[in-house]
C-alpha cells in the first residue's frame, strides 16, 4: 500500500512526499494529502459522512475526528481534528480511533448525536443494508441509545418531498452532510438544491421556481450516505442484499461510462455509477442511470417474424425458418441489384463487425453505413483520414485526462452537456482549473456557461469559415496544447470537418470526434462505412483490400466504394438496389424520414434486426429479434477510441446478439462468418488487427455553396437534448419529467418584434411546429429548436437539414 515510498523502479522518491505517523505506522504520501486518506494507506478506515474524495472538503459532520499529538512542529493540536480537512505535515503524528481513546470517544459522541434525530426505520429504508450510517453506527457507535432511554423526542418532518420528479427527499433521515448540494454546485454546476433553515431544522431545499432539473441529479442519490435521497423509480423496489451486481458500460452515449447494474431474478432493478477515474470518475448521467426499462417495453419482439406469402402479414416463425427465409430473400435481392446495409449507431463493436463482415462476405457489397442521421461524403472521408485507428496510445489521440490538461478546448458541432455527459463533466472540471472552452455554436447554452466557456456564434453552415478563422486569428491562442472536439452534427456543415482537420494541422492542436451514440466509434473501426474495411483499411486501397480478404479468408472483396446511407435509400427507391438489411435504425433520425419510409416500402426485400417494434419492422419481410445491451456481452468504443468491454448482465438464452443472428443467416447462405459467439468474434477482430499501410487521404472539402436566406426566413439550428422523446428512455416517466421542456429559441431582435408572444409557429419545408419561445444570444438570422423533444422530431415535422424556416408569434 505504500507505493510511494517503495518505488520498485528505483526512481528518486518524489520530493513532495510527506512522511507522517498514523497509529504508530509510518507512511509517506504526497503533499497536500488529507489525513483521512493517508490513514487509508495504513489500512485504517476513519468513519465519515460529508467527506467525498471528489468534492471539496467541508468538515461538517465531524465524524472523522482524530487526535493529533504532534502537528509536525512538535506541538499537539489541543482539540480533536477533522481528518477530512486536515492536510498531512512532515513529522505529524495522528492517532485514530484505533489507538486513541480520545478520538474513539469523539467519534462515538458524534455518532450518538447523528442518531438522536435519525429515525430507526432501517427495515423499510432503501439504504438499509448498504448504508454508511448503519454500517458506521455498528462499527463506531454505541449499541444503546441514551437519547431514547431518557425519553428524547426526535425531530420529524412530513415525508417524503419531491425535489424533482425523479428525486425524493426524506428530510428526517438526512444527516446534513451536504454531499448532494456540494455535488450539484461543484460537479454538475446545477445548484438547484441548497441547505435552508438552521439548527436541527436545517434541510435540503429547492427554490420552487427553479426545479432540480439536472442531467446529473441521480448522482446525489448514490453519494447520499443515508437513505434521505431516493429515486421515484427505485424507491421501495428491492433490498440491496437481494441484488446481484454486475459491472457494465452505459449504452446511451459515446462516453463509455462505467456503470454497475443491480438485478434480481433476471430483472434489472437499478443502475449505479461505476468508479473509473480514467473515464467517468464516479458520475453518470441520469439517462445512463435511469433509462433501462426500454428493454422491458411491451413492444419487445419476442420471436422471429416472417411475412406470410399468402396473407402478406407478418407471422411468427422459428429461428431456422427465419434464417432460411432471410438468406433466400437476400440472395435474390443481391441478384436483383444488390443489398444495402444500415446498422444504426447503437451496436457493440462485435455486432458492428458482424454486419461489416456480412456485407462484404455474404452480400458482396460496400453499401454499408452506420450513420443513421444526416451525414455527408465529406464526413466519411474525414472519419477515414482523421479518426479511424487513432485510439489510446496513438500520438494524435485525445483522452478525458487530456481534456483536463488542455489549455483550450474548441467545441464545434458538439453540445457536451446534451450529447456527451461525461465529457461535459470533465470539461467543467477542467474549466475550474484553467482550461478554457471555446464553442462554435448558435448560442451560449447553459452547459457552456457552466464551463465558463466563450461563444463564437455561428449560424448553421458557417462553421467551416469560423474554424478557418481560428487559424488566422491567434487571439484565442489555439496551439499544440489545445484540443478540438468535433461532434457528429458538423457533418451537416459543408467543409467544416475538413476545416477542423486543417485547423488541427496548422495549430498542432489535437482533434477528436465525439459522436452521440455508443456504437458510433466502434462502427468506424470495424468498417461499417462505404469507404472503410475493418481496422481502418481504405476500400480504395488495393493492398488494404487484399489484406482484408486474406484475414477473412475470401478470394476477393468488392472493389468499388459503396453507397452511403442516403444513397442506399435513394437506390432502394429507384429500384437500383434489390434489398435492405437494417438493424437498429429509426426512420425519424434519418435526413429525410418520409423518403426513408418510402424507400423501405419500395425495397424488394427487407431484413430487420430489432429489439422492439418500429416502422421498419412493420415494413420488413423478415424480423429477427435481437438482444438489448443487458442481455449480451460486447464492447463499446468511447469517443477516445478506448475499448470498453462488458459481459452480459442477464443470462437470457432466447436473446441473441446481432452477430449470432447474422452468423445464422450467413450459414444458411452457405458462408461461414467464422464466429457465432461474441468471444469468437472478438478473437477474429484481434487477429484482423489494424491497418499499418497508408491512411486514406485527407478529406476533400465539400464545395461550400453560396446560400441565400429568403426574406423573413431563419436558418434552423438544432440538436437533441439529453432527455427527450428518444425511444431508449421509454418507460421512464419520472426521468422524462425532468427533461428540459421543448422551447424554441429566437434571437433577441426577433423576440422584441414578437412583442410578448409566448409561443411561436415555426414553418419549414416539412411542416409546422408550435413551441413556447425564449430569447437567446443567437445570430439575427438563426433560430434553435430541440431536435427530438416534440412530435416526431424536427426532421420529420419541420424542416430538412440546412434549410430555413419562418417564425410567427402567437399568444397562448
Amino acid at each position: 500500500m505504500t507505493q510511494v515510498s517503495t518505488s520498485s523502479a528505483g526512481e528518486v522518491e518524489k520530493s513532495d512526499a510527506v512522511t507522517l505517523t498514523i497509529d504508530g505506522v509510518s507512511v509517506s504520501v504526497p503533499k497536500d494529502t488529507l489525513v483521512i486518506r493517508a490513514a487509508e494507506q495504513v489500512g485504517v478506515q476513519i468513519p465519515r459522512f460529508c467527506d467525498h474524495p471528489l468534492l471539496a472538503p467541508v468538515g461538517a459532520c465531524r465524524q472523522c475526528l482524530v487526535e493529533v499529538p504532534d502537528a509536525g512542529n512538535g506541538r499537539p493540536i489541543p482539540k480533536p481534528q477533522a481528518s477530512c480537512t486536515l492536510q498531512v505535515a512532515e513529522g505529524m503524528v495522528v492517532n485514530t480511533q484505533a489507538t486513541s481513546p480520545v478520538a474513539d470517544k469523539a467519534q462515538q459522541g458524534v455518532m450518538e448525536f447523528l442518531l438522536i434525530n435519525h429515525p430507526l426505520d432501517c427495515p423499510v429504508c432503501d439504504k438499509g443494508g448498504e448504508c454508511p450510517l448503519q454500517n458506521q453506527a455498528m462499527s463506531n457507535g454505541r449499541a444503546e441509545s441514551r437519547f431514547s432511554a431518557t425519553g428524547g423526542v426526535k425531530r420529524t418532518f412530513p415525508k417524503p418531498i419531491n425535489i424533482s420528479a425523479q428525486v425524493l427527499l426524506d428530510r428526517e433521515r438526512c444527516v446534513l452532510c451536504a454531499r448532494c448540494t456540494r455535488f450539484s454546485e461543484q460537479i454538475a454546476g446545477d445548484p438547484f438544491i441548497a441547505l435552508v433553515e438552521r439548527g436541527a431544522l436545517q434541510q435540503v431545499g429547492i427554490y420552487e421556481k427553479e426545479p432540480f432539473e439536472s442531467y446529473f441529479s441521480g448522482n446525489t442519490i448514490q453519494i447520499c450516505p443515508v437513505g434521505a435521497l431516493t429515486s421515484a423509480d427505485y424507491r421501495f423496489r428491492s433490498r440491496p442484499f437481494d441484488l446481484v451486481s454486475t459491472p457494465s458500460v452505459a449504452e446511451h452515449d459515446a462516453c463509455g461510462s462505467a456503470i454497475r447494474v443491480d438485478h434480481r431474478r433476471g430483472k434489472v432493478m437499478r443502475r449505479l455509477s461505476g468508479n473509473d477515474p480514467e473515464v467517468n470518475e464516479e458520475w453518470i448521467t441520469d439517462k445512463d442511470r435511469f433509462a433501462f426499462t426500454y428493454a422491458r417495453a411491451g413492444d419487445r419482439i419476442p420471436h422471429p417474424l416472417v411475412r406470410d406469402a399468402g396473407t402478406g402479414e407478418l407471422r411468427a416463425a422459428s429461428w431456422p425458418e427465419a434464417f432460411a427465409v432471410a438468406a433466400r430473400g437476400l440472395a435474390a435481392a443481391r441478384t436483383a441489384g444488390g443489398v444495402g446495409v444500415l446498422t444504426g449507431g447503437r451496436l457493440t463493436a462485435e455486432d458492428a463487425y458482424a454486419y461489416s463482415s456480412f456485407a462484404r462476405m455474404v452480400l458482396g457489397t460496400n453499401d454499408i453505413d452506420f450513420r443513421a442521421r444526416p451525414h455527408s461524403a465529406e464526413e466519411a472521408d474525414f472519419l477515414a483520414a482523421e479518426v479511424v485507428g487513432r485510439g489510446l496510445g496513438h500520438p494524435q489521440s485525445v483522452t478525458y485526462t487530456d481534456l483536463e490538461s488542455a489549455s483550450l478546448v474548441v467545441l464545434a458541432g458538439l453540445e457536451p452537456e446534451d450529447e456527451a455527459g461525461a465529457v461535459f463533466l470533465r470539461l467543467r472540471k477542467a474549466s475550474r482549473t484553467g482550461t478554457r472552452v471555446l464553442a462554435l455554436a448558435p448560442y451560449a447554452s447553459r452547459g457552456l456557461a457552466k464551463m465558463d466557456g466563450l461563444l463564437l456564434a455561428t449560424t448553421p453552415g458557417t462553421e467551416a469559415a469560423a474554424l478557418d478563422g481560428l487559424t488566422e486569428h491567434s487571439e484565442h491562442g489555439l496551439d499544440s496544447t489545445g484540443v478540438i472536439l468535433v461532434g457528429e452534427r458538423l457533418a451537416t456543415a459543408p467543409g467544416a470537418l475538413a476545416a477542423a482537420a486543417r485547423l488541427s494541422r496548422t495549430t498542432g492542436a489535437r482533434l477528436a470526434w465525439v459522436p452521440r451514440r455508443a456504437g458510433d466509434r466502434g462502427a468506424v473501426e470495424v468498417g461499417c462505412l462505404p469507404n472503410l474495411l475493418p481496422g481502418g483499411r481504405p476500400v480504395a486501397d488495393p493492398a488494404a483490400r487484399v489484406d482484408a480478404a486474406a484475414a477473412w479468408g475470401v478470394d476477393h472483396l468488392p472493389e468499388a466504394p459503396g453507397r452511403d446511407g442516403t444513397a442506399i435509400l435513394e437506390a432502394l427507391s429507384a429500384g437500383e438496389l434489390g434489398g435492405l438489411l437494417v438493424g437498429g435504425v429509426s426512420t425519424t433520425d434519418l435526413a429525410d424520414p418520409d423518403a426513408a419510409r418510402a424507400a423501405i416500402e419500395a425495397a424488394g426485400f427487407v431484413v430487420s434486426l430489432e429489439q422492439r417494434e418500429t416502422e421498419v419492422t412493420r415494413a420488413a419481410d423478415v424480423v429477427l429479434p435481437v438482444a438489448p445491451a443487458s442481455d449480451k456481452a460486447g464492447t463499446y468504443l468511447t469517443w477516445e477510441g478506448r475499448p470498453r468491454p462488458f459481459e452480459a448482465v442477464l443470462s437470457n438464452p432466447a436473446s441473441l446478439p446481432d452477430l449470432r443472428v447474422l452468423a445464422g443467416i450467413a450459414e444458411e447462405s452457405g458462408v461461414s462468418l467464422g464466429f457465432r459467439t461474441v468471444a469468437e468474434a472478438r478473437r477474429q477482430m484481434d487477429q484482423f488487427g489494424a491497418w499499418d499501410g497508408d491512411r486514406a487521404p485527407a478529406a476533400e472539402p465539400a464545395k461550400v455553396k453560396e446560400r441565400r436566406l429568403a426574406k423573413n426566413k431563419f436558418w434552423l439550428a438544432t440538436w437533441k437534448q439529453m432527455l427527450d422523446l428518444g425511444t431508449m428512455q421509454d418507460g421512464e416517466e419520472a426521468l422524462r419529467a425532468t427533461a428540459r421542456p421543448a422551447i424554441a429559441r429566437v434571437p433577441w431582435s426577433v423576440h422584441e418584434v414578437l412583442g410578448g408572444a409566448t409561443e411561436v409557429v415555426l414553418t419549414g419545408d416539412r411542416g409546422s411546429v408550435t413551441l413556447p419561445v425564449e430569447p437567446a444570444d443567437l445570430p439575427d438570422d438563426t433560430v434553435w429548436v430541440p431536435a427530438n423533444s416534440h412530435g416526431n422530431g424536427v426532421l420529420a415535422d419541420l424542416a430538412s437539414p440546412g434549410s430555413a424556416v419562418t417564425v410567427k408569434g402567437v399568444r397562448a
Partner: protein
Amino acid sequence: MSATPSPVLTPVLSDNWDAERAWTLESYESLGGYAALHKALGMAQADIVEAVKDSGLRGRGGAGFPTGMKWSFIPQDNPKPKYLVVNADESEPGTCKDVPLMMASPHTLVEGVIISSYAIRANHAFIYVRGEVLHVVRRLQQAVAEAYAAGHLGKDIHGSGYDLDLVVHAGAGAYICGEETALLDSLEGRRGQPRLRPPFPAVAGLYASPTVINNVESIASVPAIVANGAEWFSSMGTEKSKGFVLYSLSGHVKRPGQFEAPLGITLRELIDLAGGMREGHELKFWTPGGSSTPLLTAEHLDMPLDYEAVGEAGSMLGTRALQIFDDTTCVVRAVLRWTEFYKHESCGKCTPCREGTWWLVQTLARLEAGQGTEEDLDVLLDQCENILGRSFCALGDGATSPITSSIEYFREEFLAHLSHGGCPFDPAASTVFAAQGAHA
C-alpha cells in the same frame, strides 16, 4: 454612564455620550472628533499599525486577540483589494456595549474605521450591524452620510489622496453571523455559516481577498490611541490586558448600564458603581463575558477583570457582559433558557452543535421539571464533553459553558430539583416586577 464621575472610571469611548445630540457630526467634531483622523492621515501606515501594536489593544469582541498583530497579518504584496469589516453583530446574551456605543456616538466608530482602513491600506470598509437594531442602523447610516458630506469619507480624504468607501450592512438576525467567517458569507449575500479555515480571512476573507475583521469597540478605540499615543493607552489596565473597556452590567443590580473602566477592575467595584445588588439580595452567580463564558460566583467578586485572571478562574473575559443574578434565581432555569438560545441559533452546519443543543435542551428541561436521576447529570456532562472542542466553530463550545460551570458550582441545586419534583424557586421572585422583599 455614571452621573457623578468616579475615580475608577475612564470614560473615553463613552466620554461624549451625555453631550447634546452626541450622535451628530456637529457634536462629535465640537468635542475634537476627527482630529485623530487628520493626525493619522499624516502618519505612515506602518506607524499606525505599530502604535496599535504598542498600545497592547486586544480584540474587544471576546477572544482578545492583539489587534495590531491581526492587522500585520494582511499580506501587503497580495494584488487583491484589502477590506476592513467591522463586526457589529452584537448578539451574545448579556452583551450590550457596541449597540449603545453606535447609538450614542456612531462617529467614534466611523473615525476608527477610517483610520484603521488607512492603516491596513483598504479602500473599502463595511460595518456589519445586527439587523434587529434598526435605530442603530439608521444612526450609523446617517453618520456615514454626514462623514461623506464632510469629506471624511469618499475620494481624497482630507486632501491626503486616500480614498475610502464605507458601507453599513444590516444583517438578518442570526447569532452565528457574529462568527467572523459566517459574517463574511452573510456579507457576500450567502447563508451565514462558518467557513473552513485555512484560508484565514487575513489571506482570503471577504470576496477571497485579505480582510481584517474587528469588533466595534476595538475599532472605536483606535482614534484615541492615535490621538493620545500608545503609551497613554497602555498606562491603563493590567500587565497583559491594556487599556479601558466597556463593562455592561445587567440583571439584579440597582443601576444596570455601561461602565467604562480599565481592565483589571473587580466586579465588587463595578457592582458598587451600579448601586449595589437588588435590595435585600445577595449575588449568586454571574457571567464575566456573556452566556458563552463559564459562569462565576460570589467567591470571584474580587478577581481582577482582565483576560488572564478570568482565564485562570476557569472562565473567559469575553465581551465583559456582566450578567448579575441574585439568590432568587434558579440556576437550572437560567441555564435552560440560555441553552434554548443556542439550540435556536445553532446554524446546523456541524453535527455536535446542531444535534447536541437539540438534546441538551431536552435533558435540561427534564431536570428542571424534576424528572430523571442524578445519572442524567453525568449524561449531560458527557454530552457537553462531546460537543466542546468537537464542533466546527465556537458556538457549540459556548453552548456547553453555562451547563458545565453551573453543575460545577451548583450541583446540589440540580439535585434539589429531582428531590423536590420540580423547581424549588418562585420564578416570579427573580423578575424585575417582583414585589420588593420577595423571598427566595
